[in-house]
Structure formats: C-alpha cells, structure tokens
C-alpha cells in the first residue's frame, strides 16, 4: 500500500477529535466490543467442552429424530430470523419504520419458535434421564468403551450449560427486539442496526454450537436403538 493510499485509509486526523474515528457511533462501537467479549465467553465454554470430550470417553447419543430434526429446524429458524432482521434494518435505513417494525416482529417470532423447539428438545432428553452430572443408565451401558472405561457423566453439564446460555441469549434478544419494535419510531436508525448486530451474533454462536454439540454427537450406527 502506498503512503498516500495508507493516509487515505488511516488518516491521522481521525484521532484529533471532532470526528468518529471508526465512522460508527459510540453505541454501535460499544455493541461490537460487547460482541467480542461475549464471543470469548462462548469460545471458552466450547473449548472447555472440547477439552472434556478429548480427555474422556464421550457418549454420542443423538438420534435422527427427535434431536437432529429439531436442531436442524431450529437452525433454519435462527438463520431465517437473521434474514428478517436484515430486512428490518434495511427498511429502517430507508426510513420505512412501519415496515421495519413488521420485519422485527417476524424476527421475534422465529426467535420464540427457536426457544420453544429447544425446550421441547430439552424435555425429550430430560425424560430420557439426562441430568447435568449423570447419564441415563442405558446410555452408560451402550457407550462404555471396550476396555471398560465409563462414558463421561459431564455430557449433560456441557450440553445444558452451552445450549442453556445460548437460549438465554436468544430470550434476551427477543425481549430487546420487542422493546426496539415498540419504540422504533422514536429510535434512530443506528439503534435499530445495533439491535440487529446483537441478534446476528446470537445466530453466529449457534453456527458453532450446532455442529460441535449436535452434529458431532450423532448416534450414527443407531447404537442406542439396539
């Protein structure tokens, strides 16, 4: 990059005051910084899960139905909610506040659908006997290693902690969006955009939770059904 081109990209005058150095408002920058720190929270949880998984015999108990079907539909809900949110922000940027409100309400609908489906999926597992610190007896007998090592009882702890924290984020996001939808006419466009950033982040986290928690724990051979 030539010196002139660099000066254009990073003008020193940006930091002399009087302008927004990143060309985003301080609220939006604050949301970005929150997203960075929250990414680290989820990274730490997922890496803690990977740590346990690599150092233990790990059960792979999820059947195609209900677990994978439910989690796939949930993924579809979250991805679609991100799309409706983008449409909402886009409408808001054109000043079409009523349209923006409708799209945000659609986003909340998909978010709530995600939570309901996830709770049904949790209920299946709890009914099967999964608890945070113990596995159902038939999981233990199925997934005991050939050398007699028992599967880790921490499966439930990691599963409920990670998906639970994510579900909490979705619920918080739905409330946040409901407030934004109610006040959309008073809010500046940037505030709508910021709520969109948070919502896409929740979607983003699920893109890692879904493959690592669900896809990697599929009961491929149907060992549990036997």
């Amino acid at each position, binding site marked *: 990059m030539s010196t002139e081109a660099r000066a254009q990209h990073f003008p020193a005058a940006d930091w002399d005051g009087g302008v927004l150095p990143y*060309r985003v408002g301080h609220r939006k920058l604050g949301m*970005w910084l929150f997203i960075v720190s929250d990414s680290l929270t989820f*990274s730490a949880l997922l890496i803690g899960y990977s740590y346990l998984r690599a*150092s233990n015999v790990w059960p792979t108990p999820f059947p195609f139905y209900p677990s994978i079907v439910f989690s796939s539909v949930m993924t579809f809900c979250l991805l679609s909610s991100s799309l409706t949110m983008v449409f909402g922000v886009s409408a808001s940027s054109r000043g079409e506040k009523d349209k923006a409100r409708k799209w945000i309400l659609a986003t909340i609908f998909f978010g709530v659908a995600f939570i309901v489906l996830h709770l049904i999926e949790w209920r299946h597992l709890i009914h099967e006997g999964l608890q945070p610190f113990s596995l159902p007896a038939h999981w233990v007998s199925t997934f005991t290693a050939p050398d*007699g*090592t028992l599967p880790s009882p921490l499966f439930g702890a990691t599963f409920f902690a990670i998906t639970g924290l994510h579900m909490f984020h979705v619920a918080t996001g739905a409330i946040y969006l409901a407030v934004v939808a109610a006040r959309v006419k008073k809010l500046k466009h*940037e505030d709508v955009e910021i709520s969109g950033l948070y919502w896409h982040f929740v*979607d983003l986290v699920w893109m890692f939770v*879904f*493959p690592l928690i669900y896809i990697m724990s599929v009961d491929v051979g149907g060992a549990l059904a036997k």
Partner: protein
Amino acid sequence: MNAHEEHFAGSNKLFTSIWVWLLILTVIEIFLAYKPMPLHFMLVVLLGLSLIKAALIIAYFMHLKFERLSLILTIIPMLVVCICLLFVFFPDSFRSSDLRYKFKETAPVPAAEEH
C-alpha cells in the same frame, strides 16, 4: 446522522442469496453427520464450514464488510488471537486422556451387568 442512513449498503437480493448459502452449508453439515469418516477429519470439515458461515454472517448480515477498515482491524484480529490462545489447554487434555485409569481387559464391564 443522515450520513449513516445512506451508509447501509447491500440489497435484499444479496442478503437472500447469503441466507440460501447458509442453508446449503447447514444441509451439507447434517449430511456429513451420517457419513462414516474419521472423527478428526469430520471435526476439521465441520469447523471449516462453520467458519465460512460465521464469516458470511459477520461480513454481510452484521455488515462489517461495509464498515471502515480500521474498525475491522480493531475487532477481528485480537478476537482470533485470543481464541487461539485458548488452545494451549489441549495438550493437557490429551495428557489426562492417557492418565485415566484403565480397567483390565479381563475385568467385567460394570454397566454390562444390567443386562
């Protein structure tokens, strides 16, 4: 803040095509779940696909592609470095896997007694 309002680039058509790509990548992931393959290979492929999906969401839905370069450089590299630093724990994980008490081959499988 009118400058911001003109700022929101990207058409609904573009965002819809991103959504379709994200769905396609998700279907590939679910398909892979039922293909027998070595665990490590599957992990690498799944994480690769997830990173692509994350990049699409950040770049287009979160609009970072259209932001100022200095904002991107402030946020992304330090996040990547911090996450990579967390990987220092894995050697210990593999070590504790080897330290775990192993039952003798001849010992009866405890859970098998339930049958």
